[in-house]
């Protein structure tokens, strides 16, 4: 039973560039959430997708956008990269319509902006 998989594992970009991160949820899960974890900090909620729609959003600018595909996989896009966007980006999946469904996290994508 595959868990949450994320790609790539590491990425180096230059300020001003755009980046796309990918996530495949755990088998059977239909909801995907994205978190940003800066160095030495706890993860911060970016947004959550279900049925290909953004359901909830954290305090992140519009430069952060996402998408969910019919197979439940998801992408996180960040435009106009800033040095401060350097972080570990975590994807988490869960099952909608099931009370108390805990999040299952992937190992993350380490983004470095230079």
């Amino acid at each position, binding site marked *: 039973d595959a868990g*949450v998989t994320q790609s790539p594992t590491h990425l180096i970009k230059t300020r001003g560039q755009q980046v796309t991160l990918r996530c495949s949820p755990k088998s059977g899960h239909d*909801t995907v*959430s994205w*978190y940003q974890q800066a160095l*030495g*900090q*706890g*993860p*911060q*909620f970016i947004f*959550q997708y*279900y049925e290909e729609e953004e*359901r*909830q959003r*954290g305090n992140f600018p519009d430069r952060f956008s996402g998408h969910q595909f019919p197979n439940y996989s998801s992408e996180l896009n960040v435009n106009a990269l800033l040095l401060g966007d350097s972080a570990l980006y*975590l994807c*988490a999946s*869960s*099952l*909608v*319509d*099931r*009370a*108390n*469904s*805990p*999040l*299952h*996290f*992937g*190992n*993350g994508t380490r983004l470095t902006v230079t």
Partner: protein
Amino acid sequence: AQSVTQPDIHITVSEGASLELRCNYSYGATPYLFWYVQSPGQGLQLLLKYFSGDTLVQGIKGFEAEFKRSQSSFNLRKPSVHWSDAAEYFCAVGTISNFGNEKLTFGTGTRLTIIP
């Protein structure tokens, strides 16, 4: 808005000794509380969760946590730590909607070092 405080940034414990990691939360309703562990370069693994019922929750790897509403706390404990427990530990409070766990708010984490 909900928030989580983990007052200890770094804790060092001898192998075989007991462990308690502190977590305090702020949330207007009945909280849904979690402890996650993160090894270097890895994602987060769920140790245990509290939704309702018994305030003493058992988790994986011999961990347990106790929910104390009067103190707004959810401290993590283990009677005897192993070198493999060295990691970063995060406490989180979750908001719940009809969709299940909508989002988690994490503390800043406690780094656990084990000495022989």
